[in-house]
């Protein structure tokens, strides 16, 4: 997979993950073009399209479009299910996920994606395993929070 984009019906980008090196300018141009192309398509149309030399796989969930760009030999249907699995993961983590969850917790959306996909390939397809990894991390955060108060003084000294 070359990249994944999440954007709203209004065309606002909510998440962008690039698995190929591209300049900022190229990224912006690609996102703009692609968002426009996909928003112009009608609901019953097929989920795949050729775009430049890539295959685009996209699906809409409520107000959000999930869109992946894969290479010529890649499998469209399994990519469609990668999108679905990611949505399931978000849903499970946030509890009926909505666009706002992704806006306000964008860093979480990135962390979950990294546990699921890495370098553009599926890293762990088991929902349980991915969520376990994320929950462990959250646990670590909470531990850290508890430990925060007594330690912060020390750290401040360390930092100055």
């Amino acid at each position, binding site marked *: 997979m070359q990249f994944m984009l999440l954007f709203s019906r209004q065309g606002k980008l909510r998440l962008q993950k690039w698995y190929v090196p591209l300049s900022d300018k190229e990224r912006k141009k690609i996102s703009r073009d692609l968002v426009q192309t996909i928003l112009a398509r009608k609901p019953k149309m097929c989920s795949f399209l050729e775009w430049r*030399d890539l295959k685009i796989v996209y699906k809409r969930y409520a107000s959000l479009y999930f869109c992946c760009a894969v290479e010529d030999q890649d499998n469209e249907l*399994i990519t*469609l299910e990668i999108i679905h699995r990611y949505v399931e993961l978000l849903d499970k983590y946030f509890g009926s996920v909505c666009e706002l*969850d992704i806006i306000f917790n964008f860093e979480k959306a990135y*962390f979950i994606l990294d546990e699921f996909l*890495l370098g553009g390939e599926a890293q762990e*397809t088991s929902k349980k395993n991915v969520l376990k990894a994320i929950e462990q991390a959250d646990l670590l955060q909470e531990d850290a929070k508890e430990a925060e108060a007594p330690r912060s003084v020390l750290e401040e000294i360390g*930092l100055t």
Partner: protein
Amino acid sequence: MPAVSKGDGMRGLAVFISDIRNCKSKEAEIKRINKELANIRSKFKGDKALDGYSKKKYVCKLLFIFLLGHDIDFGHMEAVNLLSSNKYTEKQIGYLFISVLVNSNSDLISLINNAIKNDLSSRNPTFMNLALHCIANVGSREMAEAFAAEVPCILVAGDTMDSVKQSAALCLLRLNRTSPDLVAMGEWTTRVVHLLNDQHLGVVTAATSLITTLAQKSPEDFKTSVSLAVARLSRIVSSASTDLQDYTYYFVAAPWLSVKLLRLLQCYPPPEDGAIRGRLTECLETILNKAQEPPKSKKVQHSNAKNAVLFEAISLIIHHDSEPTLLVRACNQLGQFLQHRETNLRYLALESMCTLASSEFSHEAVKTHIETVINALKSERDVSVRQRAVDLLYAMCDRSNAKQIVAEMLSYLETADYSIREEIVLKVAILAEKYAVDYTWYVDTILNLIRFAGDYVSDEVWYRVIQIVINRDEVQGYAAKTVFEALQAPACHENLVKVGGYILGEFGNLIAGDSRSSPLIQFDLLHSKFHLCSVPTRALLLSAYIKFINLFPEVKGTIQEVLRSDSQLRNADVELQQRAVEYLRLSCIASTDILATVLEEMPPFPERESSILAKLKRKKGPGNLHPDLDENRKERSVNGGTADHSSTTSNAKVAASPTPSTDLLGLGSTITTQNSAPRASKGASLLVDVFSGNIAAFPVETPVSVGPVADENFSSFLPNTPQVAYANATLPTAEEPEDKFVCKNNGVLYENQLLQIGLKSEFRQNLGRMYVFFGNKTSTQFMNFAASVVCQDTLQAQLNVHAKPADPTVDGGAQLQQILNIECVSDFVDAPVLNIQFRYGGTLQNIAVKLPITLNKFFQPTEMTSQDFFQRWKQLGAPQQEVQTIFKARHSMDTEVTKAKIMGFGAALLDGVDPNPSNFVGAGVIHTKTTQVGCLLRLEPNTQAQMYRLTLRTSRDTVSQRLCDLLSEQF
């Protein structure tokens, strides 16, 4: 304020995001962001050290601002600091920021790498994963340099946790994609292959992706993965849907892993071991069988996952292309999908069938679905699906169904979406040509193309129809009649006027016997379109008119009248004005014989691959790197078509037409390459000069060959050029003639006050042909004229040059042509010598000139991708294969000129290969009789220092050296 559901809320961040969302306008948003940026900046710069939490919060805000699309130019240092925090949550945000933003700021890379190194050696799996994710996300070269050796060790170490193995595998995959040269194969590769046997399916999934990527690079090293992959696949396919627990997805056992395994197997041919092969065939059959079973769930996820595996299995079957029964079963399965209610499946079935159509085993089976596909073309509501249908019709077309398919595509064209019209036009044009049994059908088809979609008919298409009509006598009359009829339409497309003008100009006489298409009617018809056309078309029509004067003397007066009108003679467009002036003059002074010779019917074009095919290939990959380059090349081949040919025939009559005919096809001169424009008009002006001079003293052969080689230098061939212009016996030349011709094939080789020697040459693979033109600049005949070629010493064995005998006399003001056939036997350095001897006014003249036959003439350009280039570059890494030189620029360092020189040198210019866009990279193959030598070159200009560095890598040291010497003299 929405609920932050989990983890650590950063209240400040949530407030900020809310504020942004509440902004009513873009300006308000920018204002709010600037305020926040100022705030963060002051916090970062403040005297008071920030605690980890605040730092994390601000870094996260910066990240949010960046993701909104604003530039962020600070905060990197703070993010790097977070990496070394021992609090997970801070470290995590630090890594996220680095992953998203680091490319733009690489000064910190060593600090980042340090932090990563610490985390990798921390033995804390959560920290290790964060670090590996970061490497995989950034994937930069610096990171590859730092970690490409360490990551494989982590991957195969016995005590590495499963989750870390997964991250390490995909991290390595990413590094291999971005910097394949840095990922060295080693002892670890065998152990990676054995990960396919791992108990943890997540590990197997990640490892399969990695192995697939590596196997594409070095298949030998991973050959053993085939049997393991088949075994694994077999276990998955035969498992009950619940066996794999959480790896079962909507009742489909491990679909991702299955797809990946099938993909891995596509890196290899069918297994040779019978048992493994049998087991694989069984798997594929099972997958095909499952497609016929009733679904276990109504959910679309179930059918998608199941069909994803099925399509990948079909891809593997097509890839192997060895089991007819499986191929036919695959085809039948896809046939069912063609009529499925799911648009996605119809789309994929059409796509997959396209590849199936090219297999000899299944081509016939695919053809049985023609009606369904045609129906799809007519009834699908989604343009991307219709596009697939067009592709499939194109792929399944053969002699048996060509007429039907072409007819369907033509009728679809009338209503087709604008976005795909050009492609359909190209496809129809190709099919019509490829499967034409009688060429009247072909002509009809192309004219229909112009009628239905004239705007989308590119130049290649109409050039091609003209080439074909000219080359085939049997269709010329029909073509003339058909275009004549088509032109009757009150509104016809300009492309039709072009084709019509050209064809009537050549073959109008074939229908002139019919009173309904008498010469005058033909002319009036063409001329009625004249004022509606663009300049290039008008230029073409003017050429058609002059051809009419030759074909039909009876309309000469009418046409001269038109040419003479102010709107032509004083046309604001220089090209039109020039043509009108020259043609008028030509028609007035030249005798009928000369007219007949100059305006002779076009000679047949050399048979060559259709340029339309090339165009279609390009269109298929619009992301392709160098459309401009190809564009130029193509134009040149089309323009050059006539000129090339005319010089290959020694027949003077045939050669007589090039000037006007080059113009006919060379409309390009005004609209395409800048180079050809002055050349074409120069050619035209020559023509006039020639005929305003003393024609009697000027045998037909003479002006004739001037036409095709029309070059700025050649005007001095003309007999009426005053002799005084040549003061010295030899003209001082700034460069060795050899150097001058390295990047071009035509021009003046030598000149003194008696004689001028012009060259025109063409090379293909290891063969070449050179036309040497000896121009007698005096008014006295040269006697006992003889020219021979000598290859001295070692060159004798390396190069064969055979000179065809030429006339022993050259009349005053005339020109003699001699043909040299050249064969390159092996690579060489020296140049052959051309010895000329003749008697002029009683004295014997001896002249010896080096012929500019250099090794690079036997170059064939090779296009390749960046990846291929670097792979080969690496392969040619031995010290003796590389020759490098650094030299001072002797000409201005103009990019376009440099490009032209590299292309002229014979190599393909590869755009987008070198990471530095100001460098030039080229590739090609030197053909000799004994061997072929692949050559890569790289030219790095340094405009500040006015220097170049040139590097050549070829598989032969002598070739590297010679090419480097030749090319470095050019800049």
